[in-house]
C-alpha cells in the first residue's frame, strides 16, 4: 500500500499554498511539521479529497485520486483541524450518521460506534447532546468519526488540540498500534507529539517540502526534534 504525491500544487488566486510537493507514503506514521500557514492543512485537504489540487497527481495504490476520489474515500479517515458537530445530536447519533455516509452497513454500524465510544472513553456520554461537550470530548468524537470505517489511510490534522496530557498519550498509543498496516499522516505544531511515534517526519514551509527523513536522522547532532525543525526552517528561509 502506498500513496504517491507527485508535483502537487495548490493556488488560491496569486497565493501558492502548496508548491511542487512530491512525496511517497508507506504504512506507518508520517509526522507533518510546519509553521502556521505553511500549507499543511491545504495539503491534507487535498489528500483527503476535500479540495482538488491546481496541478499534480495523488495516487493511491496506483489509482488516480484526483480523477477518482472514490478510490481513496472508501478507506479514508480524516480529522480536520477545525471541524464541527451537530450540537443537538448525541455522540452516538452523530457517529451513526457519519458512519452511514461512509457506507458502513447498518447492522455493523451500531456495534462499531459503541466500540469507538468505549475506546475513546466516551461511552458514558454517548447519549448526551454534543452541544454540551468540552473541547477535548468533541475532539475525541472527531477522532472516533475518523476511525469509523477502519481506515487504511488516516489523516489527522492537529488531533491533539484540546486534549489533556493523558488523552494525548492515549491517542499517540492508539495511532502507534494502528500504524503497522496503515498510512497515517499526523500534522501538528507540537514536535513531542510525533517524536516518539512517527516513522518519518516531513517539514513543510511556504508550501514546499523542506525535509523528509526519519526522526533519528533529523535528530542527529541535535538535542531535540524541535531544534532540528527550527534548524531546517531557518536554514531554508536563509537560503531563500
Amino acid at each position, binding site marked *: 500500500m502506498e500513496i504517491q504525491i507527485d508535483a502537487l500544487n495548490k493556488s488560491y488566486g496569486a497565493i501558492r499554498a502548496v508548491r511542487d510537493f512530491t512525496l511517497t507514503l508507506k504504512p506507518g506514521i508520517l509526522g507533518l511539521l510546519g509553521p502556521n500557514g505553511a500549507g499543511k492543512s491545504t495539503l491534507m485537504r487535498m489528500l*483527503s479529497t*476535500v479540495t482538488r489540487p491546481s496541478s499534480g497527481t495523488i495516487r493511491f495504490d496506483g489509482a488516480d485520486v484526483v480523477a477518482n476520489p472514490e478510490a481513496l474515500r472508501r478507506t479514508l479517515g480524516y480529522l480536520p483541524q477545525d471541524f*464541527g458537530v*451537530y450540537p*443537538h*445530536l448525541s455522540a452516538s447519533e452523530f457517529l451513526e450518521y457519519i*458512519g452511514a455516509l*461512509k457506507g458502513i452497513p447498518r447492522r455493523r454500524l451500531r456495534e462499531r460506534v459503541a466500540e469507538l465510544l468505549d475506546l475513546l472513553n466516551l461511552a458514558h456520554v454517548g447519549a448526551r447532546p454534543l452541544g454540551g461537550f468540552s473541547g477535548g470530548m468533541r475532539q475525541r468524537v472527531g477522532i472516533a*468519526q475518523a476511525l469509523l470505517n477502519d481506515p487504511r489511510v488516516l489523516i489527522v490534522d492537529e488531533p491533539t488540540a484540546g486534549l489533556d496530557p493523558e488523552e494525548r498519550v492515549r491517542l499517540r498509543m492508539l495511532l502507534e498500534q494502528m500504524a503497522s498496516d496503515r498510512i497515517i499522516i499526523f500534522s501538528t505544531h507540537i514536535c513531542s507529539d510525533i517524536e516518539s511515534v512517527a516513522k518519518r517526519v516531513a517539514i513543510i514551509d511556504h508550501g514546499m517540502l523542506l525535509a523528509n527523513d526519519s526522526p533519528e536522522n533529523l535528530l542527529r547532532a541535535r538535542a531535540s526534534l524541535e531544534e532540528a525543525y527550527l534548524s531546517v526552517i531557518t536554514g531554508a528561509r536563509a537560503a531563500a
Partner: protein
Amino acid sequence: MTGLWSIYALVRADVLERTRCYQYLATVAVTLLVGTLLVPGRHASYETFLIDGYRGIYNSAWIGANFALLTAMLLSLFAFYNVKSAVERDRTTRVGEILATTSIGRFDYSLGKALSNFVVLGSMAAILCLTAMVMQFVRGESYAFAPLQILIPFAVVVMPLIAMVAAIAVLFEMVPWLRGGFGNAVYFFGWTAYLVWSVQDELRGVPWWRDMLGANLVMRKVWEALLRVDPRAKPNSIEIGVNVGAGVRHFFTFMGFHWTVAEVAERLVWFAIALCIVAAAALLFDRFSKPARSTEQRRGNAVVLRWRTAAGRLSAPLVDALFGSDFGSIVLAEFRLLVRGLSLWWYVVAGGLWLFALFADATGQSLAVGLAWIWPMLQWSQLGTRETVFATEQFVYPTVHPIRRQFVAQWFAGVLLALVSAGGSLVHWTIAGNFTGLEGVLAGAVFVPTLALACGALSGTTRLFEIAYLVLWYLGPMNRTPFDFTQGAYAPQFTLASVVLFVVAVGARTVRLRYA
C-alpha cells in the same frame, strides 16, 4: 448512488438536529397559533377566504379547502426561510468538511437535504392539518366530520408544493450569491410575482405550470361549487389572507372537491420538477471544497478586514473615542462598517433612487421611499448581529459602556444610513413644504433601523429582520395599508413602535452581555 441507507441517515440526522432546537418549538407554536387564526369565528374582525362575500360554513370540506389554500401560501413563503439552512448548517458547523471525505455523492447529498426540508415542512403541514380538524369542532358550525375532505386537499395541493419549496431551498443554498440575504429578497419578490401571475387571470384557469401553489386550482373549484348556489357570484372579488374589516355577506355549504385524474396528475408533476431542481442543485454543489466558511462568516472576514483598514486610518481618534467622549467617532466607525465593501454598482443604484425620489411627484414618492427603504436592507440587517455573526463579542462586550456607547452608536449609524438613503425624499418634501411627508420619512428612518436592531439583538442572526422586514415592506409601503411606516399619517404609531423596539433591543443586548 451510495444507497438509500446513506440518504436515510442524512435525512434522519438533519431532521433530528433541526427539530431538537428551541427554534423548532417556536415554529410549532407559531404554526399552531396561525392554524387557529385561519378559521376566524363569526364575530371576528377579519376573514381569511371569501368569494364575492360568500364563505362556506365550517364543515370538513370548507375547512379542508381553506387550509389547503392558506397553508400553501404560508408554507411556500415563510417556511422557505425556515428550511433554507440545511446546507449552510454543514458549512457553518464544518461538518461538511467531514462529509466531503465520505462516499456520499452530490445528488444523494442534495436529495437528502431536500428530503429533510420536505420532512420539516411536512411536519408543519401536518400540524396545520390536525389544527384544521380540531378547529372544525371549535367553531362548531358543522359536526359532520369527514377527515378525507381535509386530508386530500392537503395531499393534492400542499404536498407537491412543499416538495418544490424543499428543492428550491436546496438550490438556493448551492448558488453562492443566493445563499444569504440577497437570495432571501430574490425569493420574496419572485414568490410575489409568481403568485400574482398565477391568479391574475381570475378564475378562468391557468396552465398547471403557472399554478405551483395550487391557489388558482382551489379557488376555481370552490368558485365552480359556489356558482351552483349563486350563478351570479363574481370571481373578481376574492379575498384571501387576513382581510381586516371584510364581512361575510352570505354563507353556503361547500360539499368538497371532486378531483379529476388530470388535476391530480398535474399536481404530481411538481414532484418530478422538484427532483429535477435537486439534480440541478447537485450539479452546483461544491462538496465543501471551498474553505468551510458561511456567507456571513465570509462577510465577517471582509468586515474584519475593513475594520483593520479602518482602524489603521482611524486608530488614534477611535481609541480616543472609546475612552474619551467622542461618541460621534464611534457612530462614524459603525457607519463605515455598515457601508464599506459595497460595490460601485450599489452606490450607482442608490444614487439613481435618490434622484428619482428628489424629482418624483407626490404619487411616485410612495414608491421612491419604499425603494429607498429596501435598497440598504442587507446593511441594516447587520445591526445588532455583527458581534454574534462575526464572533467579536469577546472584543466588543468588555469595552466601556458597551450598550450606551457601541450599541447605541450602531443604532445611530443605521438611522444615518436611512436618512442618507431617503435623502431625495427628505429634500423633496422639505422643498415642497409638506411636513406630513417629511414626518413619514423621518418616522421610517427611525423605525427601520430600530426594527433591524431589535431583530438582530433578539435572534443574533440577520435572517429574522430580513424576513420580517420584507413582509412588512410589502404590507406597508407597497400596498399603502396602515402598516406603511413611510406615511406621515401613521408616524405617531411608528414612532411609538420604534421606542418599544428600541427598549426590546437594549433588553436583548443586556441579556446577551450578561450571559455571554
